[in-house]
């Protein structure tokens, strides 16, 4: 056995010596009385994703976004990629997606940092 092993054993034994069962002494009662009342509402990531997808598609359809796509495709064939310009409709759709991805990443972050 080398010095490192001996020190490992020493640490384990030292912790063992100071381990003891801590009596509850009203701790549980205190925690339970401080629990938030009512149901904890947490938003499901998938729900947000579906909602954002539906919202984006709706905006796209309502604002005649498909016309922008057809126009862009036609532009590609007629003038090449450099001629593509984003319409206001496309900006709406992109903004909704970016916004929702920020929300999802925030939820992801919160779930990982319990």
């Amino acid at each position, binding site marked *: 056995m080398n010095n490192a092993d001996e020190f490992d054993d020493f*640490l384990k034994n*030292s*912790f063992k010596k100071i381990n*003891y069962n801590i009596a509850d002494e009203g701790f549980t*009662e205190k925690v*339970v009385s401080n*629990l938030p009342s*009512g149901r904890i509402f947490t938003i499901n990531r998938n729900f947000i994703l579906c909602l954002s997808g539906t919202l984006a598609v709706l905006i796209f359809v309502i604002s005649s976004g498909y016309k922008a796509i057809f126009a862009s495709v036609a532009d590609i064939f007629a003038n090449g990629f450099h001629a593509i310009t984003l319409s206001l409709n496309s900006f709406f759709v992109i903004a909704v997606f970016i916004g929702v991805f920020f929300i999802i990443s925030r939820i992801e972050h919160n779930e990982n*940092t319990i």
Partner: protein
Amino acid sequence: MNFSDQRLITLVLINNDHKAYGELVFRYQSDVRGLLIKLTNGNKALADDLAQDVFIRAYKYLKTFKATAGFSTWLYRISYNVFIDYTRSLKKTDSIEGYDCISDDRKDVGSEIDMQNALKILNANEKIVIVLHYDKGYSHNEIAKMMDMPLGTVKTNILRAKEKLKKYYDDEQR
């Protein structure tokens, strides 16, 4: 209540059953408070406040608990996060006041003071990995998963902490 942890968790999630959650708190309060006492240099009052935060945070996030790991493992992870949040909230000049718990029916009061003094010289990350490895018996891999740290970082922290502790005990013996 003689239910398994999983059954109690289900009761809390479905019925919002505070009594079932109380049973879980009762089962794990000693482990969580014990861990936090070590992390807070033996400051029982502070450890209890943090432990209360741990259980309330666990209650709020109970839905995200995955039964692949034990409930205590999950609680240790939350304890680590709560402790790290607390140390970040301290001003640079503040430090955690030491032991106020060394009085009653403890196994070995001298050893406890000595260990708490030794742990004081470690930073938060070194302290948690040392306690989880040598006290709670978790492997390097398990700690890495639990703390969401790279395995290399866990090994480095343990090595560095051991060197510091060894130096501390060597100096004490002189």
